[in-house]
């Protein structure tokens, strides 16, 4: 009986009920996906069984590397002593990156993204399943290697990996070749890990030393502060052995904090950050509010319009709780249908995400999904009960005072206004985040040219032949310029050398007498179109012998060296002091000052940088630019030359634009997700507004007819109908602007270099919101306003 009546009512207004279901379903799927995404972000690295006891050890020291905070430590050799000194430490695992970018098997080179020499205790600290091998013994012997499933597949195909030899070839980083024996195959590290090694291996001969990411496994209930606080005592104790490093500060960061709370130098992979979490949480919350309030306001509107209460009471008998029962049952039904629709959308979207990004958001999350769905469903039913609840509250509060307007639909202005506050806020956020993303990408060195490619971290043998590679390439008409440099676009130029300069005395300042260095080929400035403030590029035939070396410095370096006029610093004697006696670096003069360029993330300030050129020294990354429109020719020219010169080495390159996009992948993803959710939010609000405008104009049919009979023009009726909606959007705009301004200012604080928060962004967002609102209601208003008044007044 009750359900029959519900079905009849729903059938009576199919469009409005469709809007209700669609709004809830879109809201639910949006909220579901954001929650799953956030859960994924928040549970990074928690798959390790002992995740709550694993900490990453890092140091800062004002005397070393300019007090910069690196994600790895430079004196990893002291870790065994450290572990012995502190009873809190149960175990440790050091990961020393394998450099050079390639590994060798059977005289073939295979590129690697991430690979580490590690302690044999790796599997006692970290957890990943071994497909082949025994966790306890697999890394026991020196020179043992465990490869990831993917890497094994790449190198060995379907053959068994165990027992095979994989070598780290000799090169600039390694004096001689090192052979490792594959002892096991591990599952690829899960997507929500802050590192994804292709392979790990125990050292073949030497101990781990120098740079290594260092993870300490603490004993149960051990306090990490004991270690960080006690660190200076430890160094004092070891002073004779390691030299007095009283200034070093130690930090321990829980492994589960790395993904969202760590932005140190040389992170293994680019991390995300909390801003991202906040932005998306707010988006989810807004989506939730919008879909709930939408449903509530449509229900309120329809309840008033239908005079449902009266009819219900007449048909079902007028017990006090009948209304509540009716609305509960109707809500339950609507929410159930919406949930089904949302799950259908969800399954579809999930398979799309899995297909495109390889992230399986649903997998293993069924109880979490059930939780989100039931929470949403409960809220939905509660929102559906609004008319009854409001009526009750109203009865208690005001008795029967407002009889006169009882027929009028209770349009919840508050709901519509807040929906538009959100809509405007979201539009502002999307525009500003997208603008900032464009800004950082456009201002990155060499970005936006679309015709520069980079060979990252090529092997030393390849580097040795750079000059031939360059001169041969330049013979092709498709090639514009060729250069090489220490760091790839988007990389971090962190290396610092002590220096001396004519007229610069270190005594007068606190700052350490070190400066960032950036070896590069002489075409660097030309290829990347650097702006010269004064002086000239390196000379082509500069033979960096004693005294005739040439240096370019950036503007920040000029200021660091206490000059304001770029002309004055030209010709000053400058000398870098190599920290490594085997490496000689040039000495000579400063020949040019270039405007600051952004090789690294624009989130960080540009550091003082000295560019110099030294044959075959640290030219790790090759860059090639080609003539516009000749991409295909250029690529095939480069490819054939590569096969000729370096047949054994993988031909792997990347567009410079793509390299930068990797640096900002979190922000780009944020912008993309936010636009999707903004679109959904606005869509839901608009559907709701459409429903409301339908109800309002239906309810005002008679009034419109009367006004027209009395001389109102269509335009006057339109104005009357739209006036309220415009007023609400304007109020929303006034409230949204300062909030959005504040929030976006906060967001932009993540960047050292940022776009301005121009007023037009806000104006545009307001106009967009107004436009969308007007477009939505005008369709209905127009129909109402052009209706023949005779018809409107016929049935009264």
């Amino acid at each position, binding site marked *: 009986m009750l359900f029959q009546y519900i079905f009849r009512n729903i059938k009576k207004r199919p469009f409005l009920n469709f809007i209700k279901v669609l709004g809830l379903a879109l809201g639910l799927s949006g909220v579901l996906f954001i929650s799953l995404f956030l859960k994924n972000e928040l549970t990074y690295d928690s798959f390790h069984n002992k995740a709550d006891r694993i900490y990453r050890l890092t140091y800062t020291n004002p005397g070393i590397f300019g007090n910069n905070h690196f994600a790895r430590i430079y004196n990893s050799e002291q870790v065994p002593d450290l572990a012995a000194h502190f009873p809190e430490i149960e175990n440790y695992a050091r990961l020393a990156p394998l450099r050079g970018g390639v590994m060798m098997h059977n005289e073939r080179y295979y590129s690697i993204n991430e690979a580490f020499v590690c302690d044999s205790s790796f599997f006692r600290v970290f957890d990943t399943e071994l497909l082949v091998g025994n966790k306890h013994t697999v890394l026991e012997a020196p020179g043992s290697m465990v490869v990831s499933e993917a890497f094994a597949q790449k190198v060995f195909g379907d053959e068994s990996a165990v027992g095979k030899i994989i070598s780290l070839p000799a090169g600039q980083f390694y004096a001689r070749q090192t052979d490792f024996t594959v002892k096991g195959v591990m599952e690829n590290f899960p997507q929500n890990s802050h590192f994804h090694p292709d392979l790990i291996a125990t050292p073949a001969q030497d101990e781990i030393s120098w740079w290594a990411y260092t993870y300490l496994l603490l004993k149960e209930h051990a306090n990490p502060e004991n270690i960080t606080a006690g660190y200076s005592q430890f160094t004092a104790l070891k002073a004779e052995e390691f030299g007095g490093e009283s200034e070093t500060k130690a930090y321990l960061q829980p492994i589960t904090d790395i993904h969202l709370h760590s932005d140190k130098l040389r992170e293994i992979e680019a991390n995300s950050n909390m801003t991202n979490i906040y932005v998306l949480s707010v988006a989810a919350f807004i989506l939730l509010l919008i879909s709930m309030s939408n449903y509530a306001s449509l229900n309120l509107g329809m309840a008033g319009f239908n005079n449902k209460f009266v009819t219900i009471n007449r048909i079902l008998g007028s017990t006090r709780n009948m209304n509540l029962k009716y609305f509960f049952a109707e809500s339950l039904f609507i929410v159930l249908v919406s949930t089904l629709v949302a799950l259908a959308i969800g399954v579809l979207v999930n398979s799309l995400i899995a297909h495109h990004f390889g992230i399986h958001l649903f997998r293993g999350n069924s109880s979490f999904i059930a939780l989100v769905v039931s929470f949403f469903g409960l809220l939905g039913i509660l929102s559906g009960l609004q008319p009854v609840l409001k009526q009750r509250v109203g009865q208690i509060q005001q008795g029967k005072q407002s009889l006169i307007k009882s027929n009028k639909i209770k349009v919840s202005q508050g709901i519509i206004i807040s929906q538009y506050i959100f809509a405007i806020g979201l539009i502002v956020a999307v525009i500003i985040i997208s603008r900032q993303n464009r800004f950082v990408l456009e201002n990155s060195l060499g970005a936006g040219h679309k015709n520069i490619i980079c060979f990252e971290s090529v092997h030393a043998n390849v580097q040795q032949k750079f000059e031939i590679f360059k001169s041969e390439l330049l013979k092709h008409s498709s090639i514009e310029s060729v250069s090489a440099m220490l760091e790839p676009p988007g990389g971090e130029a962190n290396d610092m050398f002590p220096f001396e300069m004519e007229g610069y005395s270190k005594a007068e300042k606190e700052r350490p007498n070190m400066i960032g260095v950036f070896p590069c080929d002489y075409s660097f400035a030309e290829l990347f179109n650097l702006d010269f403030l004064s002086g000239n590029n390196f000379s082509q035939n500069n033979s960096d012998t004693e005294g005739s070396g040439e240096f370019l410095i950036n503007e920040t370096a000029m200021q660091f060296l206490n000059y304001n006029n770029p002309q004055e610093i030209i010709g000053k004697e400058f000398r870098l002091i190599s920290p490594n006696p085997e490496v000689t670096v040039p000495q000579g003069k400063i020949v040019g000052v270039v405007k600051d360029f952004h090789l690294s993330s624009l989130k960080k300030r540009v550091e003082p940088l000295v560019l110099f050129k030294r044959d075959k020294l640290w030219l790790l990354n090759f860059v090639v630019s080609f003539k516009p429109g000749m991409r295909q020719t250029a690529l095939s020219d480069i490819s054939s030359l590569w096969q000729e010169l370096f047949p054994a080495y993988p031909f792997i390159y990347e567009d410079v634009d793509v390299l930068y996009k990797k640096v900002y992948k979190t922000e780009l993803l944020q912008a993309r997700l936010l636009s999707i959710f903004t679109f959904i939010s606005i869509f839901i609000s608009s559907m709701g507004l459409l429903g409301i405008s339908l109800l309002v104009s239906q309810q005002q049919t008679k009034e419109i007819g009367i006004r027209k009979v*009395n001389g109102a023009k269509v335009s006057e009726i339109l104005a009357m109908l739209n006036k309220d909606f415009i007023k609400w959007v304007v109020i929303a705009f006034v409230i949204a602007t300062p909030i959005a301004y504040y929030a976006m200012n906060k967001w932009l604080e993540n960047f050292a270099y940022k776009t301005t928060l121009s007023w037009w962004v806000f104006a545009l967002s307001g106009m967009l919101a107004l436009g969308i609102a007007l477009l939505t209601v005008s369709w209905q208003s127009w129909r109402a306003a*052009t209706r023949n008044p*005779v018809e409107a007044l016929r049935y009264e």
Partner: protein
Amino acid sequence: MIQTNKLTKIFRTEDVETYALNEVSMEVKRGEFVAIMGPSGCGKSTLLNIIGLLDNPSGGEYYFDGTEVGSYKERQRTMMRKGNIGFVFQSFNLIDELTVYENVELPLIYLKKKASERKEMVTAVLERMKIGHRAKHFPQQLSGGQQQRVAIGRAVVANPKLILADEPTGNLDSKNGLEVMNLLTELNREGTTIIMVTHSMHDAGFAHRVINLFDGEILTENVNEKMADIL
């Protein structure tokens, strides 16, 4: 003042065609008081709506003050109607959310009269309709007779030449009905042309002339003897 020539109105709904008016030719002179009578569904309201420029005829011609207006677009009809024609309906058709005062003020607003002028005119009309003391009330707080007086006030506030009344007494008891008829007669005496649809012979007795409609056609037209001498 009003002249129609073979005025026809066809309503098409799905596959039924209704000839609500079939070649109606009639004339109403300035200052006349005409009653239209006929059985339910014979097209009285349809005719009144077309005369009142609320609707277009499907065929035939309609001259209002000598101008052919039957083919006017909605915009033009609205312009022509404003200030020239006032309406009174059986169901009063007042706006519930507006006060008596605001309801009467409505036509003046759309005529873009100044506020002070509006106030003067509305106050005068309300006095005349003996409803001035109720200016701040809402329609639902008034009796049927009072509501119809407000509606008449609204119809006449802009001093139209023509008043169209569709069963103005249909929802009223005889006392209130009589009051309304007296008001209309008085307005007619002052020179306003009135066309009134009615089912009541009694009310039709106030008119100079009665047009009898049947099935969309004029059956008879008879001059009211009592009134004939006035013409």
